[in-house]
């Protein structure tokens, strides 16, 4: 690939062109889209079949067993929760720090947040022995006088995920309203009706924009601590327990770093896919790609560091049983997966560190997928080895997950993909108004004389003697 541009975006681009370019993604789908949908539905069908079988038969079909009460379901749950953090990173954190290169790519990242949360939410249910009683986790008033146990990190999870899903879905939607209005203005038929309802009558008035700006900023401020707390709470499922290898102080930041990491990696994946299929080279520019890759690399190094902290703390720590678990990760039955995780998570990201490698998008596509494989393995390496090698030597065991578990994990990607496919056809995956903002501001930054002229003219207008009325016309 040759250097397209070193600019984040071409600020001379026509705004009407932006609308056209982005809105073309909402046109009737091509054949490739339907193929993708079919693949996702097929994947999802695997999961549904497996889940129905498991529901009717019991969790024994998942080959869970006594030491391994938790398996891939929980690992994948953390994986999806983790992936959701990327949207928050791009839309909230970068928004607050005014990194406007996020603007062309934050929309799909934010959607990814919501969808991965919607995927993640399934896993605790699938994982439950009696999922039809899941609602007992919700604190509702009943004449039986029983409540959930608020001490349980699982209840915290339920609270945190509900809050996070609500907030991020709302955040996604609020940010979409101006674009939905554009869609409304450019569509006909049922689409028009749909977008009319969705856009809530957005007209871009100054009152709306003013409140919008405040709201967006406030939401961003809420989402950042929320995202951190959500993954800290998820980590407390483990850190709050007494098990060696789980009872680790550094788990909350470790989880958050891992979450941001996997989220960024999947942003790269989706970035490349969207850029390729919708031909959005103008918006998803190489410059932005470079920035995400660098960001991902930085987070990867943070994650690596936290890994080393954990290993070091365990190795030199007081708890020999935790050390055993660590050693079992190094050389035990999980060793191939463990080393694969470290390779994908800590070595492979160096591919992001070199410009030449970074600019090779097909390669980056593969790398980003592998990074996510690594991050998925990380979650499995958190759940599995501790259960295999805990305190009681009697219960030492190794169990390979059954096909049912794999099918459901596999199918969850189909579900996520399906949601995302629907998303890209229903709402603009690139925020048009924010790209315009970006272009507007970039243009003014690039041409300081424009701003100067504007100010000059304002001053000029004031210096003209006030005269009632304007003659002529």
């Amino acid at each position, binding site marked *: 690939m040759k250097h397209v541009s070193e600019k984040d975006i071409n600020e001379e681009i026509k705004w009407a062109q932006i609308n056209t370019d982005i809105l073309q993604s909402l046109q009737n789908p091509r054949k490739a889209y339907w193929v993708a949908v079919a693949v996702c539905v097929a994947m999802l069908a695997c999961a549904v079949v497996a889940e129905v079988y498991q529901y009717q038969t019991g969790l024994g079909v998942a080959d869970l067993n006594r030491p391994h009460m938790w398996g891939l379901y929980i690992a994948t749950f953390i994986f999806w929760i983790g992936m959701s953090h990327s949207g928050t990173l791009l839309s909230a954190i970068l928004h607050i720090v005014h990194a406007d290169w996020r603007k062309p790519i934050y929309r799909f990242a934010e959607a990814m947040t919501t969808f991965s949360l919607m995927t993640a939410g399934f896993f605790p249910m699938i994982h439950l022995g009696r999922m039809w009683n899941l609602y007992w986790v*919700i*604190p*509702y*008033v009943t*004449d039986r*006088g029983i409540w959930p146990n608020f001490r349980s990190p699982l209840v915290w999870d339920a609270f945190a995920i509900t809050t996070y899903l609500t907030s991020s879905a709302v955040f996604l939607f609020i940010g979409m309203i101006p674009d939905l209005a554009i869609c409304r203005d450019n569509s006909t038929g049922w689409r028009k009706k749909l977008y009319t309802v969705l856009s809530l009558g957005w007209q871009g008035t100054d009152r709306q924009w003013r409140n919008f700006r405040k709201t967006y900023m406030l939401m961003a401020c809420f989402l950042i601590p929320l995202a951190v707390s959500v993954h800290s709470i998820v980590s407390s499922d483990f850190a709050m327990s007494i098990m060696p290898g789980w009872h680790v102080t550094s788990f909350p930041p470790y989880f958050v770093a891992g979450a941001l990491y996997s989220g960024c990696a999947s942003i790269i994946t989706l970035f490349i896919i969207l850029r390729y299929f919708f031909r959005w080279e103008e918006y998803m520019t190489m410059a932005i790609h470079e920035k995400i890759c660098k960001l991902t690399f930085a987070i990867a190094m943070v994650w690596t560091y936290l890994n080393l902290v954990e290993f070091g703390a365990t190795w030199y720590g007081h708890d020999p049983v935790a050390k055993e678990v660590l050693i079992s990760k190094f050389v035990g039955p999980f060793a191939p997966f463990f080393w694969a995780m470290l390779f994908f998570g800590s070595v492979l990201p160096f591919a992001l560190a070199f410009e030449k490698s970074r600019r090779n998008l097909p390669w980056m596509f593969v790398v980003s997928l592998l990074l996510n494989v690594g991050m998925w393995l990380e979650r499995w390496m958190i759940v599995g080895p501790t259960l295999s090698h805990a305190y009681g030597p009697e219960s030492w065991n190794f169990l390979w997950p059954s096909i049912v578990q794999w099918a459901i994990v596999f199918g969850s990607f189909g579900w996520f993909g399906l949601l995302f496919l629907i998303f890209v056809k229903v709402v603009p995956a690139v925020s048009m108004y924010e790209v315009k903002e970006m272009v507007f501001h970039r243009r003014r930054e690039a041409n300081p004389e424009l701003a100067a002229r504007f100010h000059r003219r304002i001053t000029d207008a004031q210096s003209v003697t006030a005269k009632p009325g304007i003659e002529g016309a």
Partner: protein
Amino acid sequence: MSVVYSFFSGWVDRSGASIGGRLPGYLMALMGVVAMMVLAASPAHADVPNAVPPKGEHQGKHVEQPIEFPHDIHANVNKINCMYCHTYARRSKVAGIPPTSKCMGCHMVIATDKPRIKKLTEYWEKREPPRWKKVHDVPDFVHFTHEKHLKRFVFDNQGMEVEKVSEVCAFCHGEVKKMTVAEKVKPLNMGFCARCHEANKGPFDCWKCHK
């Protein structure tokens, strides 16, 4: 209908039927925090001292029994004590259906010409007990003890006359003495039990009933 709120019970009307337990949790709890102070003190039941009868209604359905046993004649007209026939109630967790021999003890001589008694005699002569249908049932993971409840409300209850035991039975079984075959008129669900345990300071250990 006066509606009161008990934080424990949810919204209840005076008859005790829960009317609001299924409202959204947050909303209910919000109201609950406000309404927590408003608590209804239930008056003691007239016939059973030191007891607050459980509240709740259930629309039972008629169950076809092998013999349409007239509880009203036995308990209401002839004023036979419940525990005369359901003799195990004070000694066991189950009240028990009286053995056929107990029926025959009287009906060898009494009312032998009535069709129901003839049917009973038929069973007796076949040496085969009637297969009654269970009316008052709780799930298998609930272990209710008649023995302990009778001790609390009848035998250890100061001022309680054993003759009036049917009033205590009526807590959960309704006015059986006004029925022929028994019908389920109380919900017998956990809320029903829990409200009564709260009102009468019964134990609140899950393992008392669930094992």
